[in-house]
């Protein structure tokens, strides 16, 4: 068993909005390089949970602890806002469902990718551009579009750019909120392949929220099934999908239309 530290430790996280329990006592651990899928239908609380994990919303109770590169674990809501923001820009990534939420539409593709580098002090134009070029390549974006703003890109291209923009800082943990939602099926497929490759190559840990079990099957090592804020089942992806124990998990799995 690898000796490394837990990357993200989540303990009894709960968040309510009035009467609604968006997150109900959620606990789990995530190790470096693991891909955790969170599946559930609308209203399951999975997106709220993701926002809490990413430090964008504070839970009402519970602990979310992140271990940084130096091996120090800290409660992400106990740290100061600038610290958390810095983490979000260096160690973490967040891929939004709608790429428009995760990109600067009027800044060139190169500028979008280079921003994180410039944010942490990169001051050599040539180097920044080279890095941006490398990443354009890696996410299979046409190199010639490096000086075009993503406003002119298709949805799939925008999503690739968003991914590049996040990965350029070498994050150890990336949060993804339905990254393939809203894309055409063939475009989705290409994007999933890309994500799969990159995640394995870069050994980055991922928490991915999706309602699509096929996406979960393809990308995640582990799976958590959420319903009305609670985690009803969790385990290895193949365990949960091939041998679902909980009533709701069985319902989800049996509901998938076969092509």
């Amino acid at each position, binding site marked *: *068993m*690898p000796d490394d530290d837990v990357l993200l430790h989540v303990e009894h996280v709960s968040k309510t909005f009035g009467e609604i329990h968006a997150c109900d006592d959620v606990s789990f651990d995530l*190790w470096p390089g*693991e891909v955790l899928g969170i599946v559930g239908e609308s209203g399951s609380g999975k997106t709220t949970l993701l926002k809490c994990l990413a430090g964008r919303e504070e839970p009402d109770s519970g602990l979310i602890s992140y271990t940084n590169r130096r091996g120090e674990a800290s409660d992400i809501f106990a740290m100061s806002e600038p610290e958390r923001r810095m983490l979000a820009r260096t160690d973490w990534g967040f891929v939004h469902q709608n790429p428009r939420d995760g990109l600067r539409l009027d800044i060139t593709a190169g500028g979008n990718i280079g921003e994180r580098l410039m944010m942490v002090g990169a001051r050599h134009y040539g180097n920044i551009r080279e890095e941006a070029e490398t990443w354009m390549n890696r996410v299979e974006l046409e190199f010639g579009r490096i000086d075009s703003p993503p406003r002119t890109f298709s949805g799939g291209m925008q999503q690739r750019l968003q991914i590049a923009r996040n990965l350029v800082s070498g994050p150890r943990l990336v949060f993804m909120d339905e990254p393939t939602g809203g894309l055409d099926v063939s475009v989705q*497929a*290409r994007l999933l*392949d890309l994500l799969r490759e990159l995640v*394995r190559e870069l050994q980055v840990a991922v928490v991915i929220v999706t309602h699509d079990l096929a996406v979960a099957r*393809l990308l995640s*090592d*582990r799976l958590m099934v959420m319903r009305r804020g609670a985690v009803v089942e969790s*385990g*290895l992806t*193949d*365990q949960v999908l*091939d*041998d679902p*124990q*909980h*009533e709701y998990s*069985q*319902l989800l799995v*049996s509901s998938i239309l076969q092509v």
Partner: protein
Amino acid sequence: MASKTETQTMIEVSGLSKAFVLHTQGSTRISVFEGLSMEVGAGECMALDGPSGAGKSTLMRILYANYRIDRGRIKVRHKGEMVDLASSAPRMVLEVRRRTLGYVSQFLRVIPRVATLDVVSEPLRALGVEEAEAHDRARTMLARVNVPERLWGLAPATFSGGEQQRVNVARGFVAELPILLLDEPTASLDAINRQCVMGLIDEAKTRGAAVVGIFHDHEVRDAVADSVFDMRETLAASGEAA
């Protein structure tokens, strides 16, 4: 059962009980095993035998920790120690699958748009082998199971059943893992390729691997199996198996 005095135990199942509860069908409870035990040693090939529906595939999946169990222990020798998969953290199970436990299933779970060469080299990449070397070893294995070179760059989705099965086999054997679970490895294969697979199994045994297999083909079974585990003896008291 072969004598265990000289060989190391590689797989040790004890008190295994498993039932399926089908909530979507009125919570029907189907009991598959109750109190099943078995052992497989290094260099041994055990064939699971029994009629269709006896739970052979279910047991295979349990050994791979794909299916979960209600009671019992599924121990496998991982890096020298016996590890109980049933009570291990998911992370540990993944680690065991990566380094110790290989699985050749009857149906290739086709990951679309991944080239055959990459499908076969993936288990090596997962072990940290560099791409160039992994590809080389994958090529060797593919050639061995007679998958033509022109197919190596294509995704297996459009291959024939036999071709897919051979890719499956190549992927299962390329990393030379110490424990192999083979679910109908020769299905859809002609005589030549059946021989090929038998050769691979023999080699695995020779290097000390433990093999558990479901062999529909009696000729193959008789050639490679050292022991037979009769599923009929272990069916749950209810009689019906999943």
